[in-house]
């Protein structure tokens, strides 16, 4: 998808507001030009001492222009920003929806900080694109055209000079500048990303860095990235200066040409003397409007780069696609099967192959194997985060690829090893699983996860904030909270990835028993490296020894 299409589809619902902004802006800039032109004529005419009555129309016009400019400009800015913010709103929701579609397999190549950057900074760029690029250009084009016609009607040479000057400022300078800026921006964007990633690394990894005395060398590395970014920014400074200089030159040359050509025309009688000041001085006001164009073009390059990055995310292929005519999942009880399955997170890097697995209703199965043997990949296949590259995964005999992914995930729940806790309260983290859960239900699952006693000692109880990434909780507490959340959702099949990690042995065994009891008649697949799991389950599947179902 190109960035232009992205912008067009996002902006079309706000088109009315944008047109209104252009009209108001044109009126405001037109008033400034009109004020200068009519005043110039008024003064020249007055120098010939006519009766004051002959000047009345001009006097009224000058006052009207003086009044209307500010008001129209205010209207332009409000209408423009409101429309642009509406566009931003839609675009942000759309990008997020896409990220949600892609996660997690489709986003394996991105860093979280980078994705958040796309969702905030890059989406904000659409605001710049509309209010700082398209709006000033539309206004300058309309007012410039009108002014060239006005001046050209009195002095074709001065009109041509004005047209040339405006094109220079509005088109030639920006093209040269954007070409150079694109170069600089292309250089700058990876440097910024590098600096951002380095900053995140430093801030999050500070304990590790300090413990190993490496904070200093990290800072030195960051200082290098920073210096590179500074140099890249400074390199573009001479260019910013050139555009300002050319703008000043263009204005000056129009004044010179206007005066010289006007002098010749007045001398030859082609131009009435009282219109000379109009021809010479009108460009002063026109260039005030056009002066913002080089800056607008600079915003253009940056905003376009951002929009392109968004278009990138929006056109990343989804790892899993919803079937055009999804088959409904029959009512439970459910049987899940992996049939000679192979899978890869990135093409060509197969982590599983020839794996068979059967989960009958109510079964308790443990999936064991050394770390890295693909245990979590099996879980990803079962919740359809990933499709197999060979073989098939079935739910009640239906290939998962024929079922809507959300439907699969209503049946099959997954508690990953690094289950995420949001920076909010304990209750809100639980309600992610079931927004309408009652206080009793929350307490019930907290009790099952053996967290309730601890929570009852907290002054804020379930309204306690868990901190960024759940940092206010201990490792064990984080695991239990994530467990409680998984229990709260009404999954009929539950996949638990290393559920007792970070818990001491005694609690771990107790928790596993509680957990399996709490699971009731649900099917449970426990992924673990613990050897002592065998006593808790019906069946042990060892991935390390390639799909040998060992009935216990």
């Amino acid at each position, binding site marked *: 998808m190109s960035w232009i299409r992205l912008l067009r589809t996002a902006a079309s619902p706000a088109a009315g507001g944008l047109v209104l902004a252009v009209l108001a802006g044109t009126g405001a800039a037109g008033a400034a030009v009109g*004020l200068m032109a009519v*005043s110039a004529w008024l*003064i020249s*005419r*007055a*120098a010939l*001492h*006519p009766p004051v009555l002959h*000047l009345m129309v001009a006097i009224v016009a000058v006052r009207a*222009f*003086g*009044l209307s400019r*500010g*008001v129209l*400009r*205010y209207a332009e800015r409000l209408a423009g920003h*409101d429309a642009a*913010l509406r566009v931003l*709103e839609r675009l942000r*929701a759309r990008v*997020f929806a896409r990220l949600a579609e892609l996660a997690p397999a489709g986003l394996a190549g991105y860093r*979280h900080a980078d994705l*958040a950057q796309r969702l*905030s900074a890059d989406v904000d760029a659409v605001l710049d694109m509309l209010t700082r690029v398209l709006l000033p250009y539309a206004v300058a084009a309309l007012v410039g055209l009108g002014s060239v016609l006005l001046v050209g009607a009195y002095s074709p040479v001065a009109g041509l000079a004005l047209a040339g000057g405006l094109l220079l400022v509005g088109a030639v300078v920006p093209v040269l500048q954007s070409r150079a800026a694109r170069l600089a921006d292309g250089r700058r964007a990876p440097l910024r990303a590098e*600096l951002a990633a380095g*900053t995140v690394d430093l801030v*999050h*990894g500070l304990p590790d860095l*300090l413990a*190993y005395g490496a904070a*200093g060398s990290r*800072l030195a590395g960051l200082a290098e990235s920073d210096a590179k*970014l*500074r140099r890249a920014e400074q390199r573009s*400074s001479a260019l*910013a*200066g050139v555009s*300002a*200089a050319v703008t*000043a030159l263009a204005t000056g040359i129009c004044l010179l040409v206007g005066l*010289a050509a006007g002098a010749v025309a*007045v*001398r030859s009688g082609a131009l009435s003397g*009282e219109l*000379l000041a109009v021809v*010479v001085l009108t460009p*002063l006001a026109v260039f005030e409007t056009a002066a913002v164009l080089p800056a607008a073009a600079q915003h253009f390059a940056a905003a376009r780069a951002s929009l392109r990055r968004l278009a990138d995310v929006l056109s990343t292929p989804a790892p899993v696609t919803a079937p055009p005519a999804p088959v409904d999942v029959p009512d439970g009880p459910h049987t899940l099967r992996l049939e000679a399955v192979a899978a890869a997170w990135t093409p060509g890097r197969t982590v599983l192959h020839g794996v068979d697995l059967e989960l009958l209703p109510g079964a308790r199965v443990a999936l064991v194997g050394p*770390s890295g043997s693909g245990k979590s990949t099996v879980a990803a296949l079962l919740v359809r985060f990933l499709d197999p590259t060979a073989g098939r995964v079935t739910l009640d005999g239906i290939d998962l690829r024929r079922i809507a992914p*959300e439907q699969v*995930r*209503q049946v099959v729940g997954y508690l990953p*090893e690094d289950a*995420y806790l949001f*920076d909010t309260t304990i209750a809100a983290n639980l309600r992610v699983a079931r927004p309408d859960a009652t206080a009793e239900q929350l307490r019930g699952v907290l009790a099952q996860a053996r967290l309730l006693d*601890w929570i009852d*000692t907290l002054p804020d109880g379930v309204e306690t904030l868990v901190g*960024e990434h759940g940092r206010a909780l*201990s490792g064990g507490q984080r695991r239990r909270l994530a467990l409680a959340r998984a229990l709260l959702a009404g999954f009929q099949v539950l996949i638990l990835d290393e559920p007792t990690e*970070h818990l001491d042995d005694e609690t771990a065994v107790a928790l596993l028993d509680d957990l399996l009891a709490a699971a009731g008649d649900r099917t449970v697949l426990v992924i673990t*490296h613990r050897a002592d799991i065998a006593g808790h389950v019906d069946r042990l599947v060892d991935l390390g020894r390639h799909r040998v179902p060992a009935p216990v």
Partner: protein
Amino acid sequence: MKPLDPRLLRYARSTRVYLAATVALGVVLAALIVAQATLLAHGITAVFLDGADLRTLTPTLVALAAVVAGRAVVAWAQETVAVRSSASVKSELRSRLLAHLAAVGPARGGDTGAVTTLITRGLDALDAYFARYLPQLVLAALVPAVVLARLLPADLTATITIALTLPLIPVFMALVGLHTEAANRRQFRLLSRLSHHFLDVVAGLTTLKIFGRAGAQVATIRRISTEQRRLTMRTLRVAFLSSLVLELLATLSVALVAVGIGLRLVSGHLDLTTALLVLILAPEAYLPLRQVGAHYHASAEGLAAAEEAFAILETPAPARGTAQAPTGTIVFDDVVVRYRDRDALRLSATIEPGQIVALIGPSGCGKSTALDVLLGFVAPDHGRVTVGGVDLGEVDPAAWRSTIAWVPQRPYLFAGSIRDNIALGGPPTRTPAPPTAFAYCFTGALPDAPAPDVTAAARLAGADGFIAELPDGYDAALGDNGAGLSAGQRQRIALARAFLRDAPIVLLDEPTANLDAGTAAEVMAAIRHLARGRTVVIAAHRPELIALADRVVDVVPQPVGVR
């Protein structure tokens, strides 16, 4: 609001040079503006009333061309200086912020999203402040003064009109500014909150998907954005109001001056040259002030960002000791650490050199906090830790840490290769910044020490097996905080760091928690090997770890909510 925060001069020295250059350029520009207006007025009058031809006009045209060239040069210099200065100032602030964050250490807490936003995006708000606002501010002071000085001998009435209306602009600016300042701060805080929220939601996307809540989050994001638009528009309606008043005052004054001189021309009280001079110069007197108003929003954003930076820079860094790293018995002397109004740790213990000590106790009893205190990440709120009789608070933390190898419960993996991540345990390969250079003096390690044996360390940690299976082996690039590696694999990389460190003191936080039985046995053997002749403190639950210890210290859990 102060137009220029004096702290900006203190924290970013480039600002001073920039200000001097801007004032000098402003004076030249004001003189050129007056010269251009004078030449135009003379030229137009000469042609219109005196019938001058092109030849008579030539000196005026040549002078005008020179003025035009001068203005172009000044315009170029102004922009170039502004962009360069802004880049320097941002760079100075970024470097100071990062160094200060490292100096304050992990105890600072706070919102990492907001800090990252500030360092990467927030400071860019200074661009507009330096490139647009500050030069306009200088011009707004210089140009009206020079213009009025030129108009005074020419036309008293116009001079008085302009002199009376000009001061109204700063007055209105201040009035509206007072109102927008608070709104701008709110806006900036709102933006960092949003950025934090997005980071949180994006990081938790998988979890949201599992629970079928991703779709609902789309609606939430939409709702938050709508709220953001409402708040922003409310701020803008007032912020733009200031420019409305300014434009109205400036344009209306010019219109009144134009009509006034027109009427005085008719009655013969004024000549055309003077009238044209007034007409050309009147808008020039208002222009810089109007533009200051137009850039006011940008400036407030820039200063708000600077303020956030100063707030971080002014967080006091903990006092650092200077003593050399001591050796000897480690004593926890009635140490108490408080976290959020409760005791997170209460410990008295003695650890003899060469001893292997296991800290045991249920999850959350403060075992990891005890290790944090030993590392100097957390200062005891009561009591003290001494090593060989020396209070740890008096020891240079970098020197002390250089005698420690640490394996945390959740090791952080950095963007880079596996080799780089393990090599963190070895001497730094880059030119070190001063704090690390100090560490060298104490450990005796040289900056050009031979390349650390990453492979051997990985083998000891039981990590070489899975690393060899990766497509790029030791050069495999790690994703976000080790994405793509299992928790056990991450733990083993952290263990390899510790083996590489080869330090007299080893701190282990549940080192075998994430390993399968086979690997755990291998690692246990390696830990036994590593422990020989060293002081080892292990936060442990697993029996085989506890069995390894010479001595077991029970860390008593502190009742929650009780002081």
